[in-house]
């Protein structure tokens, strides 16, 4: 066990535990808070994978934006579902069983393969090297320029659609 492995196991345990809290807590606000812990754990995993850019993006976009927007939405739809009420469907037992089977298949398949047991060694990339490569690939007309522009269209759709759907219509009851 190297120190790095111990760090990984600790982070993974925290991530999984908080993910379990996320899906099992009655109070939806607390579930959102545990989601933030999970996202933080995933950010550390990204840092361990040396995807620095995505570790920072995880903190910036997921924790700084998505989680905050989720909390806003939770505040806007509160006190309709009281916390005492059952938070999960009646058939949750079957779902749990199915998911467990799914997970067992996944994990047994993963651990049986040889390729996948490669040890990941630290990459030798220094400084901005990998981000520059990423940026070049993203804007290269022969590479990913089209998906990049399409992503912008997707965001445009999300912006316009989200605002259109969420806004109070004129003449509607003003809350």
């Amino acid at each position, binding site marked *: 066990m190297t120190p*790095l492995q111990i760090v990984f196991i600790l982070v993974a345990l925290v991530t999984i535990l908080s993910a379990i809290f996320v899906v099992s807590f009655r109070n939806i*606000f607390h579930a959102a808070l545990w989601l933030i812990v999970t996202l933080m754990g995933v950010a*550390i995993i990204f*840092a*361990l994978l*040396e995807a*620095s*850019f995505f*570790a920072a*993006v995880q903190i*910036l*976009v997921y924790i*700084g*934006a*998505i989680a*905050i*927007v989720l909390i*806003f*939405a939770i*505040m*806007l*739809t*509160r*006190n309709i579902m009281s916390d005492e009420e059952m938070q999960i469907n009646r058939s949750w037992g079957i779902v749990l069983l199915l998911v467990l089977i799914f997970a067992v298949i996944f994990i047994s398949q993963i651990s049986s393969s040889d390729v996948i047991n490669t040890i990941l060694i*630290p*990459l030798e*990339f*220094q400084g*901005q090297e990998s*981000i*520059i*490569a*990423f*940026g*070049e690939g*993203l*804007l*290269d*007309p022969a590479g990913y*320029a089209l998906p*990049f*522009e399409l*992503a*912008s*269209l997707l*965001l*445009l759709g*999300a*912006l*316009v659609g*989200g*605002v*259109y759907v*969420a*806004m*109070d219509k004129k003449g509607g009851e003003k*809350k």
Partner: protein
Amino acid sequence: MLNQWMYIGIFFIIAMFLPAVAIFLARILSPKKPTKIKNSVYECGMETYNPTWIQFKIQYYLYGLVFLIFDVEIVFLFPFAVAYGKLALFAVVEAIIFILILLGGYLYVWRKDALTWQ
């Protein structure tokens, strides 16, 4: 790179640890004499009614939404900006188109008055 992140990690733990220790010490040192009035919620000097966790207006969500979209957009322009020195003019134009597409959405949101605090 891992070293840099290790420093950040250590710093994060210390940054959480220092205020926690200070508060813990203060808890030990400070007197504890709670009374019912003292512990009541500070609202207008009256008993509050209805639960605190009420709904808020939709405006907050609209700001959050616009912020979220812009944030994601800007974040993926950062690799472009870093690689700027190695890109051709054509790639720069592409990035500008990327922004201009979103600017259309921004104008729409502006016209709909979603950005005005009501």
